């Protein structure tokens, strides 16, 4: 009856669902997030940002643009010196929130020496990892939705006109995009929380990646492009090819994907994210606005890019975590 097993062989079929206990983990983690001081600070930060930027936007909208079919969307995109637009802030606030929610998710369990106790319960590691990811994502969804409602509410009160269904739909798309953008940064933070035993190291590593993409990646991608495809004869093709490469390289950064993707959503008259793209949201191309469906087609690659990146990173943390020796 005894059948000796080979060395380190992975067993094919596992009993039961890998998600047993998932919702217990999600509920516990969300409760932790929502009551934590860390979250309180982030909430204050983001509420202040939203209130400040939207207040400035309203001032600006009142004085300059009186007639605009997409007045409501202006709340998100209008800036008034010296305050940038709300979406500009979102681009770096969201990674911050995501990293804050994820950087100590797994190593925290090791450090509190709770991991072996939790994994001695009838659940798989899958459920713990996924539960923590989902809890972070849901918490972010909750916070972002609250902010979103706050801005819509402020708009209703101060602008005095209700948003059109299309405006609402576009604003909702922005919310969804923000959540997916948060998802990828949450996945980054969780990878580091598996790799590094010290939460501080994990946080630092995640912030380093974030800063790298925020500050250096654009510069680096144009440098890389000019190194890989140098302009020898100054022909149009050469210049185009180089610019295109630089742009595609830049899109490796989630920040770029996000900031590009919100342009057609919030500025319906932007018809292309190709070479005509300018980095300011202000520099929109004039013309007839695109219907929402076509704007979505424009950003579809960006959205799938964000989701694919999230899945890849999650898979990476999964593999690393499965191999981890649970001994504290």
């Amino acid at each position, binding site marked *: 009856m005894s059948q000796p097993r080979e*060395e380190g062989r992975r*067993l094919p079929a596992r009993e039961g669902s890998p998600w047993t206990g998932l919702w217990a983990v999600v509920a516990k983690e969300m409760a932790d997030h929502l009551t934590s001081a860390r979250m309180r600070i982030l909430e204050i930060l983001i509420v202040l940002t939203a209130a400040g930027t939207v207040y400035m936007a309203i001032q600006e909208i009142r004085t300059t643009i009186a007639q605009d079919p997409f007045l409501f969307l202006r709340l998100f995109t209008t800036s008034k010196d010296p305050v940038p637009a709300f979406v500009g802030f979102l681009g770096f606030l969201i990674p911050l929130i995501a990293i804050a929610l994820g950087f100590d998710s797994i190593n925290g369990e090791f450090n509190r*020496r709770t991991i072996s*106790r939790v994994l*001695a*319960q009838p659940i798989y590691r899958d459920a713990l990892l996924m539960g923590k990811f989902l809890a972070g994502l849901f918490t972010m969804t909750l916070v972002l939705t609250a902010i979103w409602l706050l801005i819509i509410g402020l708009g209703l009160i101060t602008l005095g006109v209700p948003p059109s269904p299309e405006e609402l739909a576009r604003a909702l798309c922005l919310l969804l995009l923000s959540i997916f953008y948060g998802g990828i940064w949450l996945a980054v933070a969780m990878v580091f929380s598996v790799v590094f035993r010290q939460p501080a190291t994990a946080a630092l590593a995640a912030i380093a990646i974030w800063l790298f993409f925020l500050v250096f990646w654009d510069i680096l991608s144009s440098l890389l492009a000019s190194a890989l495809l140098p302009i020898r004869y100054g022909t149009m093709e050469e210049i185009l090819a180089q610019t295109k490469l630089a742009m595609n390289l830049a899109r490796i950064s989630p920040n770029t994907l996000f900031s590009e993707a919100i342009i057609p959503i919030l500025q319906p008259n932007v018809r292309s994210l190709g070479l005509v793209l300018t980095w300011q949201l202000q520099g929109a191309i004039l013309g007839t606005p695109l219907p929402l469906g076509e704007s979505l087609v424009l950003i579809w690659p960006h959205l799938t890019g964000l989701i694919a990146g999230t899945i890849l990173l999650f898979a990476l943390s999964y593999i690393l975590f499965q191999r981890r020796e649970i001994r504290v």
Partner: protein
Amino acid sequence: MDELVIETEGLTKHYNGVVAVENLNLRVRRQEVFGLLGPNGSGKTTTILMLLGLTEPTAGWVRVLGLDPARQPLSVKARVGYMPDEVGFYEELTARENLAYIARLNGLSGRVAQERIEEALGRVGLLDVADRPVATYSHGMKRRLGVADVLIKKPQLIIMDEPTQGLDPEAAREFLRIIRSLKEEGITIVLSSHLLHQVQAVCDRVGLFHKGHMVLEGTVTELARQVLGTAYHIQLEAEGSPESITAALRRLPGVTDVSWDGKYHYRVAAVEDLRTEAAGAVMSAGGRLLSLELDRPSLDDIYARYFEEVEHVPAA
């Protein structure tokens, strides 16, 4: 198979070529309290982790409650309680909240969970502090909470890694009381410990680990016979002629050694419990018996002697 709760064959774990556990054949029967002994790094924790499916064995075969921990980890973990050597809790949560999370992970909710939590907390005497954050608990209270935590799932087998470390003597005694009462309820218990007198007080059988091998296994008496040669030491005090008393005791079949410690005190080493015969021998030698006591072989002696010997003879 008479109710083997744990059965392993050739269980082996190597870490990059370093032997942690080698060719372990362990058998623990139902309602038994089994102690894992051995110096630091001898493979006790590794064995425990493999039994729970928390570490994958390099080779070998394991059954826990008739289940394979690698193939049926959920069924195994639903029935086996594990208290790690460094048990930790969510410090900002109360004891009740900590246990509630564990209950939910075990698929328990509502009244059932509530009742189990109350029962477990009551059992370890933490009811009146149950709503305090665990951060305010002392080391001993956390250990007790660890026991409550294990009881939530109503396990058939409890595995505890060094459960009594850092407990004061009274707390340790209380702990042993709890272990005995769990055994009474039909729960099988495996524990590792360095506190030999506690192991001796509570364990039915012990296994002695050395460099990943289980080198000795059995009841304390059996180990004593193997390691100390004789299993029984009788201490007796008697008045009378030391020479004739010693001679009479020596003549008893089964006595291996008799020593006279001056005045009235004698030590008799024997292969079995020869108290009655010893008393008879003293009387027949014209002595007056003052006291007669059987020295239980002490695990401390066995342990010390065993490792004294292996230090001279390197383990094969």
